């Protein structure tokens, strides 16, 4: 798992509005407390309270409505400042950002240095009026890192599990799940992680299973992702460079909306978007935007506005000298909305839950090899295209190999992983030979699967020569593939290797 550094500004909704920690400010959303300053917290205010309840606690509380615009635009300078240390910053909500530490680590000499540097950079870019403190955490994986940031500490590699184990279940921020766990006497993430996977799945469903994975530190790898190559990206180029944010957003709006509509039509959703802004003179700004819920066009346009406005206005680093010429949006961490997936808050159907539970039960009773799922691998022959892996294993461990299939035909419905030995002869009973240039000495006429009963070959393809590892004299392999249609209407894929014939697949 990658090491992730998370920078967290507590009470950002308050700080963005220019209030310091010592002013008792309460930020409201729909008459409920969304955030408050530490002074307000001292007076007993906490998140989730109703306005009237908070009002009754102290007379000097200041109530304000949440201002998303201010939160976003005030955080842009912070993101740019951090981007100087690590070019690709992942921003989720204003107030939090994350970076992958591998590169910067080496450059800045260790995680402690990096932590101090990032904190200093961010602090320097914070709004002057509120001057909030920042906290930085480093750990394996995004989940642990965000929690480490709450305590402003570095969790050593491999210690995520230990770190997480003492945290209370309320940190999962899923009140229903955590109250259920507490009722059962499970108060810490460690106790939760110790429960057997099977039990968690059948008792708490998919969501519980997902959090169980996070709690025992193995988390994000179990996401089932669609290959990024298969997903389109959105590239917009303007005829004339534009240097006004509103005009840009206006021009992009319909393109972005159409793009996300087409994603959801295909049943896909993404939780991360890579945005690249490029000016006419070649200056580039890149950013990763993450959302816990799947991205919609509204959310992305709002973030684009922050990013573009921050750059063009010069508030977030140096403004570009010319206008923006092109914008690229590349969806990342794409998964299926309507299929089985293990992600925060995504809906999973009853049928999915039933199937998952059934698979787990069978594996529990009969072992991991009881249930498999197909995964795409890629290879020359029909048997190499897909492999089976046991249910529950992370698919990210298997990489697709880039060998395109050369057969111009439909795929055969039955494939034999170990080819079966057969006989093919010509009309007179002689063997068939294929020259290095693909010329046959005679015509195939009959075929036998069991060396006894013979079928007439009614149709056959011209030979397809495959030369594998021609550079390696020991493992060199030369095979010749044929398609045959027999007198009973069946069609087969066969190959000839060193004088022997084999059945590779049947088109049944």
């Amino acid at each position, binding site marked *: 798992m990658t090491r992730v550094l998370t920078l967290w500004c507590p009470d950002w909704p308050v700080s963005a509005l220019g209030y310091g920690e010592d002013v008792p400010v309460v930020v409201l959303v729909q008459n409920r407390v969304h955030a408050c300053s530490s002074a307000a917290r001292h007076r007993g205010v906490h998140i989730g309270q109703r306005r009237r309840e908070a009002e009754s606690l102290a007379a000097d509380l200041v109530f304000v409505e949440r201002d998303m615009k201010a939160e976003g635009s005030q955080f842009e300078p912070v993101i740019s400042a951090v981007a100087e240390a690590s070019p690709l910053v992942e921003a989720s909500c204003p107030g939090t950002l994350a970076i992958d530490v591998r590169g910067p680590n080496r450059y800045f000499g260790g995680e402690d240095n990096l932590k101090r540097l990032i904190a200093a950079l961010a602090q320097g870019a914070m709004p002057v009026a509120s001057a909030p403190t920042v906290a930085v955490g480093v750990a394996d994986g995004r989940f642990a890192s965000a929690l480490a940031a709450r305590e402003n500490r570095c969790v050593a590699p491999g210690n995520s599990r230990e770190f997480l184990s003492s945290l209370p279940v309320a940190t999962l921020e899923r009140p229903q799940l955590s109250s259920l766990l507490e009722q059962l006497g499970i108060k810490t993430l460690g106790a939760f992680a110790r429960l057997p996977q099977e039990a968690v799945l059948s008792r708490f469903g998919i969501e519980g299973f997902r959090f169980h994975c996070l709690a025992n530190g193995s988390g994000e790898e179990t996401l*089932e992702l669609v*290959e990024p190559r*298969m997903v389109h990206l959105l590239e917009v180029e303007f005829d004339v460079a534009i240097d006004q944010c509103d005009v840009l957003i206006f021009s992009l709006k319909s393109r972005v909306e159409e793009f996300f509509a087409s994603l959801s039509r*295909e*049943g896909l959703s993404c939780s991360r978007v890579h945005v690249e802004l490029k000016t006419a003179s070649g200056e580039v700004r890149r950013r990763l935007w993450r959302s816990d819920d799947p991205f919609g066009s509204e959310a992305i346009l709002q973030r684009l506005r922050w990013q573009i406005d921050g750059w063009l206005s010069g508030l977030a680093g140096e403004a570009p000298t010319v206008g923006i010429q092109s914008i690229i949006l590349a969806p990342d961490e794409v998964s*299926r909305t*309507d*299929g*089985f997936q293990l992600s925060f808050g995504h809906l999973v*159907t009853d*049928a*999915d839950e*039933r*199937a998952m*539970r*059934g*698979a787990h*039960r*069978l594996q529990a*009773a*009969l072992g991991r090899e*009881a*249930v*498999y*799922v*197909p995964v*795409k691998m890629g290879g020359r022959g*029909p048997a190499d*295209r*897909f492999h*089976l892996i046991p*249910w529950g294993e992370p698919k990210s461990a298997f990489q697709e190999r880039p060998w395109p299939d050369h*057969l*111009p*035909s*439909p*795929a*055969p*419905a*039955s*494939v*034999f*992983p170990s080819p079966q030995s057969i006989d093919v002869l010509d009309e007179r009973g002689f063997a068939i030979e294929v020259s290095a240039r693909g010329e*046959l000495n005679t*015509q195939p006429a009959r075929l036998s*699967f069991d060396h006894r009963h013979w079928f007439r070959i009614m*149709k*056959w*393809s*011209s030979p397809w020569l495959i030369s594998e590892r021609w550079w390696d004299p020991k493992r060199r392999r030369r095979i010749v593939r044929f*398609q045959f*249609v027999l007198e*009973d*209407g*069946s*069609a087969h894929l066969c190959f000839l290797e060193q004088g022997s014939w084999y059945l590779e*697949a*049947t*088109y*049944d």
Partner: protein
Amino acid sequence: MVSTAALSEVLDRSSLGDLARGSQGLTIHPALAALFPTGLPMGSTGGIGGSAASSILFALLAKPLEQGAWAGIVGSPFLGIEAAADLGVRLDRLLLAPKPGIHWSEVVAGFIDSCEIVAFFPSAGSQQRPDALRRLAARARQRRTLLLVLVRAGTSVRQDYWESLDFHLVAQIGVWRGLGIGWGALQSREVEVVLSGRRVAGRERRVQLVLSGFSCSSSSERAPLRTVSSNQ
């Protein structure tokens, strides 16, 4: 106090009635709709055989899995996954047990409990026991799961075993197109699918299809219906 044997006999006879009155089944592929006018007969147990058995199975699975159903496939180490994907089967809704060994009936039963459609390829011999099939069929009926027994061309099947199924779908390949004498490549074939069974109203229904790698269409229509897989 009714004995279990008598009870199961009563259930056997009355539960399905006429297949034409199938339950509110899952969507069926348009080209095969003529075979099951009221949708797939959930809860029943049928057999699929013939020289295009595997492809017809994939064509049957495509629409239900797209709708959100799951399928469990037992006993086929030769399953052409790519062919399934090309015909529109959602691979992320498949559970597979290619070599279940002696636990084959437990795996089939487990899949019956958790999936909407189960396809089982019984090997000749011990896996073709009518009594085991009866038990699994009863379970499938209870869970409203469609249980399909696949007999690929070339596999032998016991007569009494085959006869005990509620319906039979036999898919035979007619003419292959695309391949010649020493040239070309397989492109598509005409397949005749015959549905028969003692519970099918009118005794027998048949359709003519054109099956290419990517689509399955009625041969009476000219325009093929594409079922392009979206799970690449």
